[in-house]
């Protein structure tokens, strides 16, 4: 694409004061890309492993264990801790991305029918998707941890 540098440019992202709607907009993209790559890859692998038999599924489960923080016992060296935290970050990140993309996607449905553009309502629901996603992620992992304990 060619651009005439003499022409004035429209104001870009950097000059606006950040608001929750901008955050939710970019989060929807980022989480969407994360789910479409890492999430879809993991999902495909899960199904392929289930279809290939117990051995392949054990290989997948070991990786999933890394993402859920299981399969590592108490005596971790520095490398073990790094691996543990990194895996858990991806696992928690993916579930958060799932909830955030779902909630901001539902918000998109409302806005697509032309509702929720009033400043206050728009801000309220933008903030609600962020808090809701964090809450659902916390609940999900609390449930996983409880299930493991129980």
């Amino acid at each position, binding site marked *: 694409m060619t651009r005439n540098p003499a022409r004035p440019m429209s104001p870009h992202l950097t000059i606006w004061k950040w608001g929750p709607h901008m955050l939710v907009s970019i989060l929807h993209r980022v989480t969407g890309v994360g789910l479409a790559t890492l999430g*879809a890859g993991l999902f*495909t692998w899960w*199904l392929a492993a*289930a279809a290939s038999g*117990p051995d392949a599924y054990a290989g997948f*489960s070991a990786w999933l264990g890394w993402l859920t923080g299981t399969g590592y016992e108490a005596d971790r060296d520095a490398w073990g801790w790094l691996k543990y935290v990194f895996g858990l970050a991806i696992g928690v990140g993916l579930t958060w991305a799932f909830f955030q993309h779902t909630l901001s996607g539902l918000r998109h449905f409302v806005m697509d029918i032309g509702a929720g553009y009033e400043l206050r309502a728009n801000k309220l629901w933008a903030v609600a998707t962020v808090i809701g996603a964090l809450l659902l992620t916390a609940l999900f992992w609390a449930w996983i941890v409880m299930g493991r304990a129980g």
Partner: protein
Amino acid sequence: MSAVSADEGDPGPGKTMATPLARVRGTGSAQAGAAHWWHERVSALAVFLLFVWFVVSLARLPALDQATIAEWLASPLAAAPMLLLVFTTFWHLQMGLIVVIEDYVHDEGGRQFWATMVKFAAILCGTLAAVSVLKIAVSGGAA
């Protein structure tokens, strides 16, 4: 269909200096621009409903080992929505990725290249996932 009305002066072929391509570009949209936007929404709704089913179903399973998953997907009542979930999810995600590519890849060649790569990858992974579901469904869960 033409966005240019006669009195705005489209002189027709042979009476203009514009190339045929420039004439086509000047005619406006092909009335198909909303399809991608609409498909993104329709697939989003389908993916949402199917994922509610998926998450609830997984939560209701007694375990998530291979035997339990295979036994669950051996039932047509699980395999059918699962196949739909695979199809709609990959349909939806390749559309979303292509929108991102269209926004951030500025040269036309690169845009076409990455959009095609995304489509290939989505079809490859989606087919792999679908064949896996079908294999379990048809073989009755015996690996």
